[in-house]
């Protein structure tokens, strides 16, 4: 009996040292990408990183003459006001956010490219296109890095850089990298036609044109790429199926994804199935449920500036992107009542000129014209996760026309084709504004402002036209070194290979 017991005990004295456990509800590199269909999910993971574009619109955007994110009492108080005043430093959280957001586009793209390269499907044609799309998104991330930060590390693999920090590349190195990637992509890799929401070769051409348009900003000297821009834009205009949408408003409609001809490179948004709060922060709609329905929700802090608002002629149909003055319910008659900052219940009124004596740091909640660019056709009665159905164009056909016009204008300010192109955009949809008869720097930049207001390109335009450092409504003039953002301090501290951009030390 005792022997049996001893044997029984010995059998229970088992041992096992297996500690390999994979998460049940998440995938690892070991158990993913075993089937070809998964690569579309992987590609979707790369495309979701450009959801960050929605933050690009208001973070760098609020450093320009088109947008102010004031502190309204204690609300919104923070780094966004230093963005407007050009008083940011390397600890600015918004700038850190931009740096990290763009880095994520690059990092996630690198990972997907390496996943493909390690896969047995890597030589299949559709997988090769996906790899090209990831390279495009990585080049787009680096394009914005060139534009905002200038000098950052160039990393093109997913190998661990935490223990071996990468070296800093120069703005010119990065420029050349983006240029060579985009050239290869449009010439050899990307197809002429791709699904809506995925990039094709024209997106690479448009982005390369954008890079070339700013050559003198990135490289100094004069722009030697104007002819290249004409070549690229003529290819898009003549061989692609992209065109100007006859309706300006439809470009930003909640159902603007179907049959869209204008959007070349798009941030796809859906109220239910894409990232939360993707656009809604741009709009002041919490008080406007009577106008836009009970689901209306938004941050409500962001405004445009009086000068920028007034640059829209009163008969310009594009002026309707703004919510200005007394507000009415959907019937257009019933005033919307709300409590003002004094606690008085009266008709909601977004005043053009800020009433506060301290418009940037302590604005009144009703100060400033609000944005409604993506809202004008309604929100379809659906608003989940505080996000909208409206897709956001990053590069669209109107910009291709305007880039071409600008290249022609810079070659010859009296170019007739340039004038025609600008008026084509300006008068789209029988817009009753008067056509331009001449082009000047001032009216060119102002026209870009009206066409692309709150679309994320204003900083790029203002720097190229030399107005970024000017004093504007509530901001004094700033020094030219602000044309590059500082490398965020956390990066300088964690990667000792990095040097700060000039002016920030």
């Amino acid at each position, binding site marked *: 009996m005792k022997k049996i017991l001893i044997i029984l005990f010995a059998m229970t004295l088992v041992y096992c040292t297996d500690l390999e456990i994979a998460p049940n509800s998440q995938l*690892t590199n070991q158990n993913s990408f075993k089937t070809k269909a998964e690569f579309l999910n992987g590609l979707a993971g790369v495309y979701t990183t450009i959801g960050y574009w929605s933050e690009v619109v208001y973070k760098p955007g609020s450093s320009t003459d088109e947008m102010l994110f004031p502190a309204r009492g204690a609300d919104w108080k923070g780094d966004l006001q230093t963005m407007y005043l050009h008083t940011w430093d390397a600890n600015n959280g918004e700038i850190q956010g931009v740096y990290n957001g763009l880095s994520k586009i690059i990092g996630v793209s690198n990972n997907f490219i390496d996943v493909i390269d390690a896969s047995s499907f890597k030589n299949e044609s559709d997988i090769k296109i996906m790899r090209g799309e990831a390279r495009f998104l990585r080049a787009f991330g680096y394009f914005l890095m060139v534009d905002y930060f200038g000098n950052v590390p160039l990393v093109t693999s997913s190998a661990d850089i935490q223990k071996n920090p990468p070296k800093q590349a120069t703005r010119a190195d990065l420029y050349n990298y983006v240029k060579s990637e985009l050239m290869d992509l449009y010439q050899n890799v990307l197809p002429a036609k791709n699904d809506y929401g995925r990039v094709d070769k024209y997106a690479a051409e448009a982005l390369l044109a954008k890079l070339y348009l700013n050559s003198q900003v990135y490289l100094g000297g004069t722009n030697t790429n104007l002819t290249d821009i004409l070549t690229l834009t003529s290819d898009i205009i003549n061989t692609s199926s992209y065109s100007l949408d006859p309706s300006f408003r439809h470009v930003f409609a909640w159902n603007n994804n179907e049959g869209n001809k204008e959007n070349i490179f798009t941030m796809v948004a859906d109220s239910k199935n894409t990232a939360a709060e993707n656009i809604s922060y741009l709009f002041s709609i919490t008080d406007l449920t009577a106008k836009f329905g009970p689901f209306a929700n938004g941050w409500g802090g962001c405004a445009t500036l009086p000068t920028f608002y007034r640059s829209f002629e009163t008969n310009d149909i594009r002026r309707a992107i703004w919510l200005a003055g007394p507000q009415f319910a959907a019937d257009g008659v019933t005033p919307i009542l709300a409590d003002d900052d004094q606690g008085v219940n009266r008709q909601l009124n977004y005043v053009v000129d800020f009433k506060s004596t301290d418009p940037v740091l302590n604005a009144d909640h009703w100060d400033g014209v609000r944005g409604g660019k993506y809202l004008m056709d309604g929100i379809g009665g659906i608003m989940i996760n505080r996000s909208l159905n409206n897709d956001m164009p990053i590069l669209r056909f109107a910009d291709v026309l305007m880039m071409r016009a600008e290249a022609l204008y810079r070659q010859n300010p009296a170019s007739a084709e340039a004038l025609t192109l600008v008026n084509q955009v300006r008068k789209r949809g029988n817009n009753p504004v008067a056509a331009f008869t001449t082009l000047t720097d001032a009216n060119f930049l102002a026209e870009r402002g009206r066409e692309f207001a709150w679309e994320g390109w204003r900083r790029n335009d203002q720097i190229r036209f030399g107005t970024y450092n000017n004093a504007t409504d509530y901001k004094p003039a700033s020094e030219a070194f602000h044309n590059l953002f500082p490398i965020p301090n956390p990066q300088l501290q964690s990667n000792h290979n990095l040097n700060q951009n000039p002016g920030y030390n």
Partner: protein
Amino acid sequence: MTIALCLSFPLFSQATTSNVRNVSEKQTITENNTPDRMQQQDQTTRKLTGVVTDKNGDAIIGATVMVKGSKTGTVSDSNGNFSLDVTDQSVLVVSYVGYTTIEMNIGTQQNISLKLFEDVRNLDEVVVVGYGSIRKSDATGALSVIKSDDFNKGTVATPDMLLNGHIAGVQVTPGNGQPGASTNVRIRGVNSISASSEPLYVIDGVPIDNTRNSASIGTDLALSSMALNPLSMIAASDIESMTILKDASATAIYGSRGANGVIIIKTKSGKEGMTSVSYSGSGGISMVSNKLELLSADQYRTFVPGAGTGTTDWQNAIFRTAMIQNHNVMFSSGNMNTSYRASISASLQDGIILNTGLDRYTGRFNVTHKMFNDILILSMNVNNTNYKFNNFQENQTSGADGGVIDNALKADPTQPIYKPDGSFNEFSALSVRNPVALAKQISDISMGDRLIANTDATLFFIPKVLSAKVNLAYDVDNSIRKAYEPIASSVGNSVNGRALIENNKYSNRLIESYLSYANTFNQKHELTVIGGYSWQEFDTYNQYTTATGFANDNLGADNINGGSSQVVQNNHEINRLISFYGRGNYNYDNKYLLTATVRYDGSSRFGANNRWATFPSAALAWKITEEDFAKDNNTVNDLKLRVGYGVTGNQDIGNFRYSSTYAINSSAGTYFGNTFYSPYNITAVANPNLKWEQTSQLNVGLDFILFNNFLRGSIDYYSKNTTNLLLAIDAIQPAVNTIYLSNIGSMTNKGVELTLDAVIVHGSQFRWNSSFNVSYNKNNISALYNNKDINYGIVSGAGASGNTQILRVGQPFGTFYGQEFTGIVNGKETFASPNQTILGKALPDVIMGFTNTFTSKGFDLSFVLRSNLGASLYNNTRAEMSQGNRLPGQNTTLEGAQFHAAGGGGITYPSSRWVENADFLRLDNATLGYNFRVIPKIVRSARIYITAQNLFVVTGYKGYDPEVNNVAGSNGIKSIGIDYNSYPHARTFSLGLNINF
């Protein structure tokens, strides 16, 4: 089962190891006279009379006199006399609280005089430590024991509240006053920044997992994110004792889980020779202990001319006098082979806020069976608690509209609760919701069962010397939470009703085996060695379903598929801990004691490069009073010096945090054409070097008994150094995430603990026991990533932004940070400087507990006083209430109203204005009881008592209560010491009855 795949291997089967000292639960004075049970049956019974006295000859009233091995027994009367039916072979067992239990043969005596000696030394009591038990006098580490008699009385939701105030160095802070709220138990300070600082709980040899997630539901749902405290699923009445292991030499046997200390819970079991049936019950009432002072309706009208004409005290409207009842029925029995104890308990505890409370029904069965002349001992402990947790809309950290308490503090006091038609009076467009409606309309109930079961077998290869033990355990907590915000409610209206169903299952399985060897050589060398292996796997499954858009409110969450849009999220994770461990105790001549332990732990939570870790410890003790020069000293009766050092770990860092995985989230994907694609989203930057947090601890202690056994106690000094603290650091970019987890921080805790116990008066008519403990702890952050400050402790409320706490090298964890407030000038807050500065700290310097018990002639009175000194709290509630822009429309304090009148608007949240001193002195518990002296024969004892809990608190703190800990995390760090709309603490009075048959 994974284990089946592993090798079967007779580990240590040749090892020359053994058992912990085999010590009986009782001190047997006449241990050679155990009668032969077989002969006893033939004896004729007769009457025995006797008297029980103390050493001075004074009668002891209420002593239990039992015939060993039977259920015959009685208690001594007011003169100490008793009479009992016995045989010549009977052995009497005589016991009384505070005295050493004796056993005595009767023989032919007709009348017997029994003398009990006070158990002042209490040193030979046996304490349960990890993997065995030891005599307390042989302990080399810093450990404390509390037995059920000394537990805090009254209704408590969790076992940790039973020991609050009794153990030096143990700080128990309730999260808030809600029944079932989480508690923070800190043994010797805070040991971690981003991992858990909670101790390990071991119940009857089974380490349990108390990590509970709460649904990460969107802010718009606005339900409470507080998970029910899993320790509340253990009935207080089933606990026999708790041992608190404090220093590393005691906890290192638990290796990677030992750094925060260990609380070992032993449940009650049946006793050989005792059959008893008992009922204990209590009923009581709770009420809010403190209300905040707001503008009354009349005051409100003076500040807001157009205000309403009604008068509503909104705090009174949400608070109530809550009923509490507890019942426990227990029966137990035992003979020489089998003993068991079975109990069922019901604890029904209503909360002081409408529609909150915690109901628990617990069944427990503990059984032990000995076979083959005690060669094989089998035991099984099974506990199931069925619970129902009624939560409320708490919404502490988000949403300008707030929850029940927030709205009770801002609702207009001139408005009625109900409209004339009986419907709730809602305040449209003012960010105020009717708090009574919130409490009554929204239902949020979690119901579940927690089963903790283990069975073990001990086989002696050599009786009393060499044995092997196998322990199998299963612990599962299975619950369903159902919440519904009706269409009729202000929060559910805009979405046509909103429902949540949450399914949670937490389980763990344990397989453990160890060998024990105990032997004494040459009468002077006593050796005890254990060595073993354990395998434990933890399985967590959470699923949340939310839905909106209901046709009507008829079915609520039970018809979640009736909602027009549903969102489902779930998560399943497993982690495994595999360990080898050993401990040796060597005792030379009962003077010099050496303990050495080592544990080799492997955890699936660590990175591939750091899966396994070794945690060693060693301790020495010297019983000075056993030396010839110190023996038989009446001033110093006992003196023992202890020194210990060890290394322990904290592996409570979450699962898979070393890895880079893909999450697939269908609500954050994209469209290609018109086809939706769920994305593979990379979650994190991998860190294959990720490992446990590590604490090394030195402890020096002295145990003493002084002045002719009048005073006993101990004093300990400790110094802890915790390194490899897990912190999120900035990932070098470009990377797939902004942050990166690394073992990079360190902190120290240094402190002194003193415990004193005295029997101040020990007459037979009157006894006064007094126990005092005080501890001092100093926490200091010694290293951070790049030694860079980390801001955390996010502030909440309308217009709130920023953090109020900072981690800074050279400062303690929980340091408050903000602007130095200097006053209000012309309706504006002014500050000493625009820069932020250190404003105080959330951790106390000193914690104290003082317990006194008086007994006389059947009456007993006891009370527990508790105090914390040196801590501050951030009063986020007062900050939000004091804004000048609350008026008109939202109620405020007089401070806020005056600020409003002076033209003030918003306030600066991170400011010294809201950091308040949180020192307090609390009368935690006071109990007056009476043991009936004249009772029917069938009743062994009967007692009634009244208990008051939280009778008063002396504090300068302006919030509801200075002991609070809202869970507000930011930057991955749980803050401590922030009070925002916390559920207030209750004051409870209860009347109870214990009756024993």
